[in-house]
């Protein structure tokens, strides 16, 4: 622990009534506390979404199972998808962005602290609304119906005629509300990065995490709003007699699909780009080298952001667009793989010639590289529209996107947890438990999601509550389900690690990993004001310059 006289006590030192602590947390506008709130909130929903996944997998363990009714199953996959995307992935990434961005740019807080708090509580309200549907939504069949229209809520299934009651409205409102929260966060991130950087931190000296969160925030502005617009249209159809998606009045179900996927595809890049950011911070530190090709990494990310706005209809290859449209979306989808691949090569280039330390953050990072490579390649397979005419809407797609989200995003998040938990709490996470977590999760992940591609290739569609025997799908589904349980155990190990290390973990000190960006110059946890004096920087790695005055980066900047 540093003996810096400027450091004032952090979270765990002061003894005060728990009510006061609670009040401070609920009314906080401090980016670090809001970051922690976002992350804790997301972890709760991770457990809920995980339970939904396990229910799905138990039902699908063998053909003609009746663990749950069809109606409950359909609610489970709808809630699982909606929860994981909107109330796990997005909040947890906002949490890390909130915590890290001001620290990494030498700022005192985000540009708009109160807007920050407001955005968090809006998102929290959204999650609450979605789950309130379990008890609140009234329909023809009695009280309490979670939405069951799939997380894309395709029209006309969402019309009053086919979805009576309020389940769909809970879906719509929950996402509309949390969507506005996301916009608030995006505005805050952009304003913070453009306006609050410490002196000397030009745009090309920002850590890649900051750059990539800037790109993510920019994408959020134009990705979330199409969904909000479409949801307003849906509400107009359901409550004001509108005809946006009403086939009987000449409306178009395909229009909903276009609007949804104009949101939906950039959304998945919104999710992965902060994970690229984590990798770009963690891999260099554990390879003991700077990131290979910083300017190219920035350019590739910006390129991905732009190209990803032009690929959305690859989710609609089976909808019956003409051959020119299908060809267009094929080439754009393949094209977006190029800058993405470049990033993978640059990460390998970072490791090349390095001195790799296999601490837990690096284990998860290597898992990410391996799995994201495979996920990207199955994406290329489906970019070929005719092949997608077979693979779309089957378990091959489900395997692909879980490979990205679990094998990519979640692995990167685990790496980020193990890397920054010491900074946030002042304690190291247990390496021993970390390795148990990693290997258990890796085995469970591959058991589930490698095998899951096969039923898709054998004709198993998605979103089915049961399947016929004699299709050779039974054993495969059983293996997939077993893997899910192994992953669940690994998650429990992780949660245990988070909790027990908070009380018993080794003291971390300012800079346990010998890293190079500004957050490692503060105490762990940082004081409320972050920096006693505003830092001034002359290169991308200010702490490297301090530790290696004989060979600073500033010589080459």
């Amino acid at each position, binding site marked *: 622990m540093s003996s810096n006289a400027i450091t004032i006590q952090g979270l765990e030192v002061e003894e005060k009534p728990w009510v006061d602590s609670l009040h401070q947390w609920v009314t906080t506008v401090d980016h670090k506390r809001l970051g922690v709130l976002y992350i804790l909130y997301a972890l709760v929903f991770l457990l809920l979404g995980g339970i939904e996944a396990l229910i799905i997998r138990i039902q699908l363990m063998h053909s003609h199972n009746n663990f749950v009714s069809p109606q409950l199953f359909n609610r489970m996959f709808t809630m699982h998808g909606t929860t994981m995307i909107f109330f796990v992935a997005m909040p947890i990434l906002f949490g890390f962005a909130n915590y890290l961005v001001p620290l990494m740019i030498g700022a005192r807080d985000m540009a708009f602290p109160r807007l920050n708090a407001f955005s968090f509580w809006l998102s929290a309200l959204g999650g609450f609304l979605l789950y309130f549907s379990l008890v609140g939504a009234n329909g023809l069949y009695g009280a309490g119906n979670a939405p069951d229209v799939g997380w894309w809520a395709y029209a006309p299934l969402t019309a009053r005629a086919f979805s009576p009651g309020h389940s769909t409205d809970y879906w719509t409102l929950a996402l509309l509300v949390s969507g506005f929260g996301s916009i608030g966060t995006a505005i805050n991130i952009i304003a913070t990065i453009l306006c609050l950087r410490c002196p000397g931190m030009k745009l090309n000296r920002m850590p890649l995490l900051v750059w990539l969160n800037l790109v993510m925030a920019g994408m959020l502005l134009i990705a979330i709003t199409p969904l909000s617009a479409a949801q307003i249209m849906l509400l107009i159809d359901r409550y004001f007699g509108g005809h946006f998606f009403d086939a009987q009045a*000449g409306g178009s179900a395909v229009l909903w699909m276009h609007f949804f996927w104009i949101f939906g595809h950039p959304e998945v890049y919104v999710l992965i780009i902060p994970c690229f950011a984590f990798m770009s911070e963690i891999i260099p530190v554990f390879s003991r080298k700077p990131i290979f090709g910083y300017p190219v990494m920035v350019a590739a990310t910006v390129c991905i952001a732009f190209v990803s706005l032009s690929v959305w209809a690859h989710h609609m290859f089976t909808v019956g667009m003409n051959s020119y449209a299908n060809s267009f979306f094929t080439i754009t989808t393949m094209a977006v793989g190029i800058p993405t691949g470049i990033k993978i090569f640059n990460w390998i280039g970072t490791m090349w010639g390095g001195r790799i330390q296999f601490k837990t953050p690096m284990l998860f990072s290597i898992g990410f590289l391996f799995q994201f490579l495979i996920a990207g390649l199955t994406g290329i397979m489906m970019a070929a529209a005719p092949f997608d005419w077979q693979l779309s809407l089957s378990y091959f797609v489900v395997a692909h996107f879980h490979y990205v989200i679990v094998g990519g995003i979640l692995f990167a998040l685990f790496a980020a947890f193990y890397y920054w938990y010491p900074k946030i709490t002042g304690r190291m996470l247990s390496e021993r438990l970390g390795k148990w977590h990693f290997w258990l999760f890796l085995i469970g992940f591959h058991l589930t999601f490698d095998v899951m591609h096969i039923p898709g290739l054998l004709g198993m569609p998605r979103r089915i509550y049961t399947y016929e025997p004699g299709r050779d799908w039974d054993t495969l589904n059983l293996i997939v389900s077993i893997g899910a349980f192994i992953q669940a155990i690994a998650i429990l190990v992780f949660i245990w690690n988070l909790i027990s290390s908070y009380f018993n973990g080794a003291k971390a000190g300012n800079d346990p990993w010998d890293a190079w960006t500004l957050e490692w110059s503060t105490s762990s946890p940082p004081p409320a004001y972050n920096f006693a004096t505003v830092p001034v920087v002359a290169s991308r790695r200010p702490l490297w310059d301090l530790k290696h005055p004989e060979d600073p980066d500033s010589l080459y900047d």
Partner: protein
Amino acid sequence: MSAAAISVVEMPKTWTLPYRGKVAMACLIIAESAIFTIFLVAYLFYLGKSLTGPTPREVLETPIFFTICLLSSSITVHFAGKSLERNNHPAFLALWSLTIILGGLFLFGTGTEWHRLIYEHGLTISTNLFGTTYYSLVGLHAFHVSAGLIMLTVVLIFALAGRVHEDQARRIDVLALYWHFVDAVWVVVFTVAYIVGR
């Protein structure tokens, strides 16, 4: 590793970054533009596809006067900001109030037009695709005008209480930027609904 050690590096000679209020409003405008774009796309896509009911040509009358009101309000709000920068409070109050009046006139115009469409032509949001897309698009814009008018009025109240000075000119500028956006959107909506769509 003390934080003070970082300052060993020399301060750059100049270090000015953009004003966060402006940046935030620009971001909000980008996000709102995306929402309006989706409603515009729906409007254009459904042109000519209504199965029944009145068509744009049959019922729409170009609201020239009220459009001029709204667009002039951009000019008045701009000069109001300029007056405030030069500490000319009476001019600021007058131009700011004029902006609100012109915006209010525009809303009144929208209201009378809707009244005519509903009661004389029987066009509502549920009549046909044209009704749905028209009222949604123009309504979304009117909602943003209303929100802007509320904010302008709040500022007016504080100005009348003597609390708005040249120090607040930057913030006034941010609000004016929002107002210009609302006007720019109207130019597009007007063109699409009353010119292209007819």
